[in-house]
């Protein structure tokens, strides 16, 4: 049996003793964990460091991993979540994602003006997202980047599917208010007269 064609649960069992199987798990999840960490802390270098820590910790603890109906991904995200929380505690700050450094997959080319406008809107929105409480940021990352179902997010965050839907609703309302607040500030700025 090779590590290429087996179910994830078997791969996880194998990875407890087989480095090659752990390598396969790493390949399956490295992009997801990197994205999760990056959008929670907003810095590429730190995202690399934390992603490395997540996988080293997973490697250290995988012999004790028990599949009790909780998917391996949830276990891995839990490690990432704890490390991100520690990082925020240690740094006690929230960085804004430097969008000019972000290489977006499938980002379509447009006119320079349109691109600048779009980039500005995106930056504002990301700033607003980073003002949200951690659990709401986590929800948005899992929903929009990892494209997880509400049930899977619920399992990962230890909540019911209904609770995730309510949290999503509240998150959208908060973001709408934050963006409106920003727009009000912009509207109050004096306009230059020619």
């Amino acid at each position, binding site marked *: 049996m090779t590590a290429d064609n087996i179910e994830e649960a078997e791969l996880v069992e194998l990875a407890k*003793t087989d*480095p*090659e199987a*752990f*390598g396969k798990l*790493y*390949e399956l999840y*490295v*992009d997801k964990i*990197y*994205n999760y960490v*990056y*959008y929670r802390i907003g810095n590429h270098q730190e*995202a*690399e460091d934390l*992603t*490395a820590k997540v*996988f*080293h910790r997973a*490697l*250290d*603890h*995988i*012999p*004790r991993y028990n599949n009790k109906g909780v998917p391996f991904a949830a276990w891995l995200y839990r490690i990432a979540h704890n490390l991100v929380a520690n990082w925020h505690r240690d740094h006690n700050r929230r960085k804004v994602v430097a969008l000019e450094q*972000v*290489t*977006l*997959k*499938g*980002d379509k080319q447009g006119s320079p003006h349109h691109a600048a406008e*779009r980039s500005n*809107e*995106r930056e504002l*929105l*990301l700033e607003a*997202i980073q003002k949200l409480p951690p659990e709401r940021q986590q929800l*948005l*990352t899992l*929903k*929009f*980047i990892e*494209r997880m*179902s*509400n049930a899977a997010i619920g399992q990962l965050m230890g909540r019911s599917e209904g609770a*995730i*839907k*309510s949290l*999503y*609703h509240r998150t*959208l*309302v908060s*973001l*709408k208010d934050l*963006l409106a607040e920003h727009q009000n500030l912009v509207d109050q700025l004096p306009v230059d007269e020619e």
Partner: protein
Amino acid sequence: MNKKMLKEILAAHADQLVNGKASSEDYLKLLPERDTELEPLLSVAEQIQSALQPISPPNKFERDLKQELLITAQQHQLEGYRPPSMSRDLLVLLATLTFIFSLGLLLIVMRRKLTQSA
């Protein structure tokens, strides 16, 4: 009423959005009496969808980290690695504390005996 319905619509819209299929208009029709509340929320969701796009970590980072992990995993295999265990650590701590406490007690008893014999 329709707060539950509103949440369901937003959740369904997000699911469709991440699969690239959502159209706000279709969802607005589902709850016309609350469209003024629903419309800006659908719009925020669409903004989030376009702002939060997956990114790729640098190839070199991915390769180097994999190499590092494989080396560590092989070392674990060779050394018969045992993962950290909280209960094991607690047991060791408890044993150490008991030893220190017993040693202290023994010293006190010996000192008393010496004082008495003097």
